[in-house]
């Protein structure tokens, strides 16, 4: 939705929702839309674990955005 509005964006979901993410992209007319996955779950992790997970996916987010780093 953000990208339709001209704002570059990267979707991040946990690996438990990969199939759904692909199906949503298809429904919205973006088959093959690239997104980042992180390990499931989110809700039962500590703040520190979440920070580490977020750090780990930054390169992948930048790659999809097409940013050199």
């Amino acid at each position, binding site marked *: 939705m953000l990208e339709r509005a001209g704002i570059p964006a990267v979707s991040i979901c946990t690996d438990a*929702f990969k199939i*759904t993410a692909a199906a*949503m992209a298809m*429904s*919205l*007319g973006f088959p093959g839309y690239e997104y980042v996955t992180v390990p499931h779950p989110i809700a039962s992790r500590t*703040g520190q674990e979440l920070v580490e997970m977020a750090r780990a996916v930054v390169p992948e987010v930048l790659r999809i955005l097409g940013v050199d780093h």
Partner: protein
Amino acid sequence: MDADDLRRAMEYYAEQGWTDGLPVVPVTESYLAEFLATTSRDPSAVVIPMPHLNRNLTVRLAALNAALAGCKPEYFPVVLAAWDAFLADGMVSRAIWQSTTGTAPFVVVHGPVRTRIGLNCRGNLFGSGFRPNATIGRAIRLGAINAFGLRPHVLDQATQGTPAKYSCCIGENEEDSPWPGLHADNGFAAGDSAVTATVIRSVLHIEARHTMVPEQLAHDLADTVCRTGALVRPTASVFVVLNPEHARLLDKAGWSKRDLTQAIFERGTKTYRQLAAAGKEAIAAGTGWRLPADHPDAIPQEAPADPDTPVRLLSDPTAVRVVVAGAPNAGVSSVVETFGRPTGPPAIAKVETHSP
């Protein structure tokens, strides 16, 4: 056409994924036309828009799925009214059927249409055995699967779901009830046919054959209404499906439906200590969901000086909707845990009559 052709057609429908797992009824254009003839609405009219999925449920798709589900054409006006009520309820349009919570459609039918089509409102209410109940509820579920593409493991992300997802359609037992029906409480004429709809998480059994005391019955119900396992929002929201025997017990003691909802509201508490034992004493910023007070998302709050201070788990008496249904043969009722409109009037739509 012989039996093999029929079986091949049914297998074809199953292979396409146009089913809830059970065989569906093959539908021809002429059979579909019989359903569409029961309504004055245009087949292409949109009943439920779902813009975030690029899909719409049209009158034609609603009819097609009613036919697939095994409805008779004369049930279709009830199916349409159910969809109208789901639109009014609002949660379906907010993608609730994609959620991990895994809610099922819940449909309650009121008024003369129940007897006209033979919809069960008495014994084995939530059980099997009655074609209108089995197929009207299924028509909604198949509509979700086929019109919106909400298939399990794909766009339907339910973690466990509920058996009610096959079908959960009941009639209100107005004949054995001492009180007016839910539709009559909400501005419809008692003689109108109408449908209440919302989304539910579970149907919980209440065994209360032991008492003639209204307050004890209200307490027994309130205990289930406020169980911590169901609390995700700050407060609970339920339908109480009261069997006619319980309704008569209350009526005999001079209680109205409002007296019952008020009594459940007043008893609808847990102590801070009980909530904290389950880690549900605080509310999250953002989602508004319950969580422990020491969670980083918790809205800061003062714990009460006395941990046995009661905390209200119903925002007001309208969070409890009372329907009378089931056989008048025992003190067995149920609490239906909803996830739709939390308070205020339930979503009810009139069944339209149409003579082609």
